[in-house]
């Protein structure tokens, strides 16, 4: 099962390596990991996507909680939540493909944020599946470069992760 784990962690040097080191040391899987400071600069918020059985995910959350710098851990995927990922794709955009590329980007509610005579950079946000679908929808040979942020997520409604 795919799980989205959100972590509030002290914004200290080395905090990221404590988390990533835990995953590698215990052979847990990381699909993606994002981290940035929160509105309170002393705290960072991390989102980790991991795949594992219930037992493994339970161990992961327990082990994360055990890290001294970790303030809170929550498995977002346990209840209603929203997840988003940002992707930038640089594509070849020449001849008749130029129009087609624009059209597909529009369908996916992507925005073209850089234009040259022969390329576009398309900005796209959504959940992982949507971004994957976009890649599938366009002609792969036209893709010059992609970069994705990895998933960040937040609970719906009253589910709040705060100190």
């Amino acid at each position: 099962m795919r799980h989205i784990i959100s972590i509030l962690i002290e914004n200290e040097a080395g905090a990221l390596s404590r988390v990533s080191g835990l995953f590698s040391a215990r052979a847990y899987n990381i699909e993606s990991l994002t981290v940035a400071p929160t509105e309170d600069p002393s705290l960072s918020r991390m989102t980790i996507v991991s795949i594992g059985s219930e037992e493994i995910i339970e161990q992961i959350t327990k082990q994360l909680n055990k890290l001294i710098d970790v303030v809170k851990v929550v498995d977002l995927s346990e209840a209603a939540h929203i997840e988003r990922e940002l992707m930038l794709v640089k594509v070849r955009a020449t001849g008749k493909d130029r129009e087609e590329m624009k059209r597909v980007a529009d369908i996916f509610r992507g925005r073209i944020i850089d234009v040259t005579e022969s390329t576009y950079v398309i900005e796209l946000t959504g959940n992982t599946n949507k971004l994957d679908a976009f890649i599938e929808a366009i002609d792969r040979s036209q893709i010059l470069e992609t970069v994705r942020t990895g998933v960040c997520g937040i609970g719906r409604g009253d589910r709040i992760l705060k100190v």
Partner: protein
Amino acid sequence: MQLTGAEIVIRCLQEEKVDYVFGYPGGSVLYIYDELFKQDQVKHILVRHEQAAVHAADAYSRSSNRIGVCMVTSGPGVTNAVTGIATAYMDSIPMVVISGQVPTAYIGQDAFQECDTVGITRPCVKHNFLVKDVKDLAVTLKKAFYLAKTGRPGPVLVDIPKDITNLKCEFSYPKSVTMRSYNPVVKGHSGQIKKAVQLLLDAKRPMIYTGGGVILADAAEKLTKLTRMLGFPITNTLMGLGGYPGTDQQFLGMLGMHGTVEANMAMQNCDVLLAVGARFDDRVIGNPTHFDEVERKIIHIDIDPSSISKRVKVDVPIVGCVSDVLDELIKQLEAAEGKPDAKSLASWWKQIGEWRAKDSLKFKQGKERIMPQYVVQKLYEVTGGDAFITSDVGQHQMWAAQYYKFDKPRRWINSGGLGTMGVGLPYAMGVRFANPKAQVACITGEGSIQMCIQELSTIKQFRLPVKIICLNNGYLGMVRQWQEMFHGDRYSESYMDSLPDFVKLAEAYGHVGMHITKPADVEGALREAFTTYKDECVFLNFVTDPKANVFPMVAAGKGLSQMILAEDL
């Protein structure tokens, strides 16, 4: 009051009432050593290798329930210390390691004796710190002592760059620290404890299984009280020995890979298991799938939630300090209306009696070759069962655990989790500093003892009357045993050739050496060591039967009830 970083370090140690620091000086810690020199409240024990400093601090802690402190320099000082830190980490030993670091401006420049200490030690410490501002130094050290001892204990490292130790700032030592990210649970959930009480009272074939958590929480008396109240059988893990009196009738001996038949069979066949401060590791329950084949209810008390349901699914988890939870458990049991089921218990004990009658630790001592088990038995008699026993790792460690009966906690000092060869001798040093009048014996082998043999020099310097019981069979015995049993008698690199003359070696360091080859001489030699040479370090080199193996044995991957006994071979 303005103090330098080095002065602050020493003041903090004084405030924490640290009496001994085990360490080794070097460039990055020179200012700190200079301040050590100017005072005499904190005494420094100079070892001969940093690894031994950490082991000694570790054993100081294990044998006293105080925090062990050690100090090393940057670079190789730290890397040498890593084995010791990892050893303490695996057994959850509270310890503070102070390491020097190159000056702040040099960090990352591949400076002389630089290494990424925080990075290297991160996976084997409870927590570590790099001090970047002298103003943070005192509070960081306070946090280190606080973290080491609270919750699930463990080693905490504080890395201090050299320039920080020479900068000045205002000093005040905080009385306490709070950390929003760290709030270990102490009290157990009373609803869960109530469920546990009911399960215990309803049990037909109950079993109590306890580990190092009981020792760490100083909960041996409470455990003994609870066990006697219930009248249940009890077993200890290797780390838990001494948590319940080893000579008591209710004690079934150690369990696990080299546990007794009665302990392993009762563990496997019980219907209600009370696990206290133990973590169901692979050397204890063998194959977890095999263990799960028998249906039983498990109550698990542990301070670390991540130890619960890690390898074995638990029915009643109770997170909390073993000592506090046992208090509450005893209280609720006393108030409970029911009593343990006497009839079922009687037939359970009868069954256990049959397993016990197999006498799975029996061995034959002939006239020719010394059996290693016999040496441990005699050591037990000669010391009146009251010595502090340290061991290294291997066959001798298992024989020590099987044949020396520990009635008190903190008397059995060994590397259970990491299984570090070489700990025995520095452990004996640490024990003796924490317990200056105690009898201390180090049970070791000719392989292990050579891994920290240089400490014979430290032992001389500080006149530590440690008795070294070397069970010398000329082999890396446990390796040889596995090769004999599982690798077709191919003794690949397990024979110890060109051993030193241990008697001369001991004498060269200024100690007494004895060479014992005959069974008839074992007891006499031990008595001589503990009486005539009471105040000296004695190296007793017992030449033992090279074919002796440790039994019972649960082979790796097998189930607890699938033991190989000595008589099977």
